């Protein structure tokens, strides 16, 4: 690995590790209950007791950011899982078998890709109502097409390689070829698209919660916190600044990793 790449990789790793630690911390215990309101601490500034200050209800922003990171990570991970899993299934099947099924599914795929994913998610939420799990399903569906397309392209390339023809001659079943001979070769391309997809999922979650479509109050997610804080951005910007910084770092960390992994 060349030097600049190495620096990128390590920086990405460190930032991601910090964010992950925050998420795990949010899972185990937060310094304050992120939901407890305190009249006397409304809009409290940065101090040793409240390292990130307090929001409009006097809730500790640091604790809320920890839980928010956890929520955002959880949602993004689920979204990417749905997208990557179903995308891979659709991509391998269509890429390997081709024919009318390929045509049919890929045209649907193209149609879905034509919509911005947020718009698509808005439609799904319009149908099923808003909430954390609805958001996961909505964004998950929106993430399928890009995975399906990438995987299909890769499978198309692999299926015509000589070694595939060789195992075919040995009489291997289609299922065996797909699972044993093709899937492992998708590893690198999948890994980098998962990392990029994760970034997009974090942004999409923040965007949707910002629009009031995701996590319901009083539960924090990074997007939700930003949305609530914008009203007070001029008088007490802390509530907006910290979740914003954390989102930026999360994206930065994963982008750096994604840039270096698999290339």
């Amino acid at each position, binding site marked *: 690995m060349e030097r600049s790449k190495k620096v990128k990789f390590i920086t990405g790793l460190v930032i991601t590790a910090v964010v992950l630690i925050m998420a795990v911390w949010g899972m185990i215990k937060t310094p304050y209950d992120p939901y407890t309101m305190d009249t006397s601490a409304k809009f409290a500034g940065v101090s040793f007791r409240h390292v990130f200050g307090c929001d409009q*209800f006097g809730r500790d922003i640091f604790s809320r950011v920890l839980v928010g990171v956890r929520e955002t990570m959880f949602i993004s991970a689920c979204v990417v899982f749905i997208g990557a899993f179903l995308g891979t299934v659709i991509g391998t099947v269509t890429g390997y078998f081709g024919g009318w099924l390929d045509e049919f599914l890929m045209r649907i795929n193209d149609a879905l890709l034509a919509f911005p994913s947020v718009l698509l998610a808005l439609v799904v939420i319009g149908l099923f*109502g808003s*909430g954390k799990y609805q958001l996961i399903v909505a964004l998950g569906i929106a993430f399928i097409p890009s995975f399906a397309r990438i995987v299909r392209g890769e499978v198309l390339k692999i299926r015509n390689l000589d070694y595939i023809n060789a195992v075919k001659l040995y009489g291997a079943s289609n299922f065996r070829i797909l699972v044993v001979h093709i899937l492992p070769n998708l590893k690198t391309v999948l890994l980098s698209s998962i990392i990029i997809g994760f970034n997009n999922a974090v942004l999409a979650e923040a965007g949707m919660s910002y629009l*009031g479509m995701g996590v319901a*109050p*009083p539960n924090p997610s990074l997007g939700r916190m930003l949305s609530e804080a*914008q*009203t*007070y951005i001029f008088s007490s910007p802390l509530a907006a600044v910290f979740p914003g910084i954390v989102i930026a770092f999360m994206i930065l960390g994963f982008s750096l990793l994604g840039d270096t992994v698999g290339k």
Partner: protein
Amino acid sequence: MKKRIIALLLVSAITAVALCGCGGDKTEGGSSKITIGIPQDLEDSLDPHIAVAAGTKEILFNIYEGLVKPDSDGNLYPAVAEDYSISEDGLTYTFKLRDGVKFHNGNKVTADDVLYCIERNADDGSGNALISAFLNIDGFSAEGNDITIKLKEADPDFLQYMTMAIIPKDNENPDTNPIGTGPYKYVSRSPQENIVLKRFDDYWGEKAYIEDVTLKICANADTIVMDLMGGSIDFFARITTAQAAQLKDSDYEILEGTMNLVQAMYLNNAVKPFDDVRVRQALCYAVDPDEIIDLSFDGKGTPIGSSMFPAFGKYYIEETNDVYNKDIDKAKALLKEAGYADGFTFSIKVPSNYQPHIDTAQVIVEQLKAIGVTAEIKLIEWDSWLSDVYTGRDFEATVIGVDASSMTARSMLERFVSDSSKNFINFSDPEYDKLLKEALTTVDDAKQTDLYKQCEWILTNDAANVYIQDLAQLVAINKKFTGYEFYPIYVLDIAKIKPAE
């Protein structure tokens, strides 16, 4: 190369178009034009006899008028009628139509139109009426410009219902093509975008000051401050204290009044576990309105304990506030008695466009944790609130403000009669039905007031809802404008707003 140039041209064209779209809604200097932010689209109906949402009715107030009309002190003055008289026995009402009152379509208001409106709201033959007070009408007739209404029994509040909007008989679509006699006429509506009104120059009374009014729908409560600061709206009638604090030292003046509605966590009395009075009482003991007002509203707001707010004067009972003072032990004991010693989980549906209600719900969720009850907030769109919660009654709890359509105790209390179509909480108490029915037909004012008060006590003691407060109303108005007046009911009188000197 050629391809690239074409692509570049295309991209710049698209960008230019996109940017044009961004700059469109900034208000220009002329102050004969105002953009008013409203929190929701007028989804339910533009037909004044059908509309139910307070947010819709407060706008329709500018388009329609009744024979009489309320002023900002809550008194009624003759509007479409020039004069009226009530017979000694209180059974016969005579209205003399004002000469030269015109509808927005240019036609003169005739006695026929008035009769049509009364008929539309009266008994439909099956014992139901759009205005239930009209069930009491024995007969009505017109002679020239005099309209006579005869009642079966005397009703001291009847005149309040003559604020019923007068609409032309020949209008086939009052729902989409509203025509009234008010100071503003309807121009257009773009769903989820805006409603445009124009001054009605043939108005019979004092004409409105501002010619063009755009009501812009600001369904995202979080962006209202940005909209005001950015100048895309000049006026917003209901901002929160925190939002008001942001607007200090800006071009906006903040006026303070009361919102005149009953904000409460309304409970669906028909679903488990809220069908048990002890559970409802437990919630009342656990929720502390004062703390909500302190946390979410900077101490501005009046706690209330029943379905009546202070502007009602003699009907309002301050003592109902003290029935459920915060008492966690008592709340827990009541829950245990009802069989929910370990608490339970329920959801609160809150319309996502009303920040005050969302803030209130957040504090309630926190307060209920103390008695082991887990509440989840579900944000829903305003139109789903109307269709699912209000009409469909498909909810467990909701935080909302209920207004009075007129200055009568009846308008607040009647909805809780078990078979009322407006009884969205499914409250049912035979004693309440009986007392309210008695109150409606009592002529003696003192006795009637007493009966209404008994009804209020039933709502409090049965813990029909978790009553919270009459919200403080903070109005943000651009300093270019002045003249806004608060009403004791939920209306927004645009005609009074005028350009500042």
